[in-house]
């Protein structure tokens, strides 16, 4: 039933975006006929009902979004509140929400820093956006802070901790290595220089800084290993989830990270309990929950699709590989097989999206995937200790620098070879 709900959401999003209502009607009519023929009227009613509810919700959401669309490419004065701000290498990306509920991405100077809750007067032109997360974007508009955010906010506090963590890494490591380590531990590529970003894209390794479901499964493995020294299996599972919750909160609880953490948690819980069917149902339930907040992510958000597919790959492909390679025991085997399972599931979508398949990037992925979990571990410890004082984080920062330098060398090599 959940699957058909999701299918309805996907179809509804496409129909609303491309205004092909008539195609939806034909499709539903065909489906009803097929279902009655194969499974009987009762089951057909339930299935079609779930499909129509999903489609109807997605269409309603899209219509509501279109009503709050803005006049594009005209001089505009907007009053908006900052939802999220993120400094990049050469500027700042600020997501704001207008008084009418429209979300706009603003690309502006690195300073002054705009924080969540700031109320702004923005003058400029809004360009139409193809993103699922905002309806428009603006480049270097004139911005006046009408009212700075005040009072205590748990989210603002978490963002501040995250920023201090990143600053701490930059103080104890060379810049590129710190940017990579921050991306691997906290997610995000905002500190990457344009040249480094381009090299990561060419090497097909940008996903290692995305904190996807696959990365978080590995984080779960490490947390579980450390906790396993002190706790029994079931206790270890729930303690791991608790640590993961704290981690997600600390990194700012971005919706994409919450999604990845939920999906990874379902996979780990089901694996621990040992019920594959529950895992599948759990994944569908998580996907349905995430798409309720924004149905468009199902069809138009590549990050969501990759995260979901990666965990599906880990859930089904990794155990298959483990059974066939049971005689091979090398250090890091589990991490390699998790990577291969995730890659097998996501490569078809990546090829369909970007139009090419890079065998070099598969090799690069295997070469770095051993280092990435260890880099995450040293990065967390280094950044955490640097929060107290940079000198405490220096030894672990040195270790993280070696691993980060290795990953950067692989990236440079593969990017240069393409």
């Amino acid at each position, binding site marked *: 039933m959940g699957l058909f709900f999701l299918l309805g959401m996907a179809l509804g999003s496409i129909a609303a975006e491309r205004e092909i209502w008539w195609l939806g009607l034909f499709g539903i009519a065909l489906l009803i006929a097929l279902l009655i023929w194969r499974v009987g009227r009762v089951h057909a009613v339930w299935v079609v009902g779930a499909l129509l509810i999903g489609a109807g919700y997605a269409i309603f959401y899209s219509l509501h979004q279109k009503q709050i669309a803005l006049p594009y490419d005209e001089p505009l004065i907007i009053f908006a509140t900052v939802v999220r701000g993120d400094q990049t290498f050469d500027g700042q990306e600020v997501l704001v929400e207008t008084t009418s509920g429209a979300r706009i991405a603003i690309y502006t100077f690195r300073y002054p820093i705009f924080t969540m809750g700031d109320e702004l007067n923005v003058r400029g032109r809004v360009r139409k956006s193809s993103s699922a997360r905002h309806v428009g974007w603006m480049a270097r508009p004139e911005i006046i802070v009408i009212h700075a955010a005040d009072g205590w906010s748990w989210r603002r506090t978490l963002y501040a901790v995250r920023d201090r963590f990143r600053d701490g890494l930059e103080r104890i490591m060379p810049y590129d290595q710190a940017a990579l380590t921050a991306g691997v531990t906290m997610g995000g590529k905002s500190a990457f220089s344009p040249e480094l970003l381009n090299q990561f894209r060419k090497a097909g390794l940008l996903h290692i800084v995305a904190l996807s479901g696959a990365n978080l499964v590995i984080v779960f493995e490490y947390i579980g290993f450390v906790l396993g020294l002190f706790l029994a299996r079931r206790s270890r599972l729930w303690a791991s989830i608790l640590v993961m919750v704290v981690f997600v909160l600390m990194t700012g609880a971005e919706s994409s990270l919450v999604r990845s953490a939920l999906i990874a948690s379902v996979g780990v819980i089901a694996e621990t309990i040992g019920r594959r069917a529950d895992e599948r149902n759990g994944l569908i339930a998580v996907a349905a929950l995430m798409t309720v907040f924004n149905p468009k992510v199902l069809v138009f958000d590549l990050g969501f699709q990759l995260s979901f597919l990666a965990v599906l790959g880990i859930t089904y492909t990794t155990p298959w590989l483990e059974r066939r390679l049971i005689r091979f025991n090398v250090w890091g085997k589990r991490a390699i097989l998790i990577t291969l399972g995730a890659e097998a599931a996501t490569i078809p979508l990546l090829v369909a999206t970007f139009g090419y398949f890079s065998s070099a990037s598969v090799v690069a992925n295997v070469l770095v995937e051993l280092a990435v979990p260890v880099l995450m571990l040293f990065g967390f410890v280094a950044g955490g200790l640097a929060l107290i004082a940079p000198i405490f984080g220096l030894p*672990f920062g*040195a270790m993280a620098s070696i691993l980060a330098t290795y990953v950067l060398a692989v990236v440079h090599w593969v990017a240069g070879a393409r």
Partner: protein
Amino acid sequence: MFWRWFIGSLALGNLLAWSWVLFATAPPFAIYFLSVGQGDSELIRIGPVDILVDGGPDATILQRLSHILPANDRYIDVVILTHPHLDHFGGLIDVLKQYHVGLLIESGRKNITSQYQTWEQMLSATHVRRVVLGRGDRLRYADLFLSFLSPSPDLRGKEIHDDTLVFMLTKNNLRGLFTGDINFRVEQQLIDRYHTALAAQLLKVSHHGSNNSTSDEFLRAVRPAVAVIEVGKRNPYGHPKPALLDRLAHSGVVTYRTDRDGTIKVILDEQGKLVIGKK
């Protein structure tokens, strides 16, 4: 097993970290014209002393500094801000966050932009010592001298560029003229006041190679052998202007550009001659 790996990693990490601290060496003398995009930044290193002139527009300066300075070297002795435009002080805000700065030298001219206000707030928060210098002032370390030629103490320039800090670097036989973003008017004032004392082998071309600076008369007064233009790739201003490049070529000046050549490194060989390298 886990604890052995953990303790071993910790020991190795300590060894690496302390080796950075104990065995780091500094070059005797070098000037780096940093590739920071559409902006200016130069790093002068003499022995253990680092002097940073401007910081470019954004965090690019941090990456460039990390390529030159050891990871554990988080102290910059002197920062010189030639004038308060974003393409010169923007990156310095990040420098203050990541490095300790011993002294800030500035012209005294202010700006009213929100970015400049952030810069002033950062200076207050980090309690950096500040000093205003101008024409007639000198900075010295060992045999390195920075002699400030402009602006005049009363800061009467109409535009911010008019009050740019201009200084002559001298070390042994090397003379290098750092011009910030001055224009034809200020160049003429310098020619009228200093005449042949403007002569220098090395010239930091003013204002990213714009067409209202580096006149033929200025080039005749300075007579540089080497010129460096700090400019960003595909910048919206069309810098460096073809007319300026022609003037440099006709004067027989060997010209380097950060948009094409990356960071430019200048050192002196054993005979005291200029050696130019690209980083």
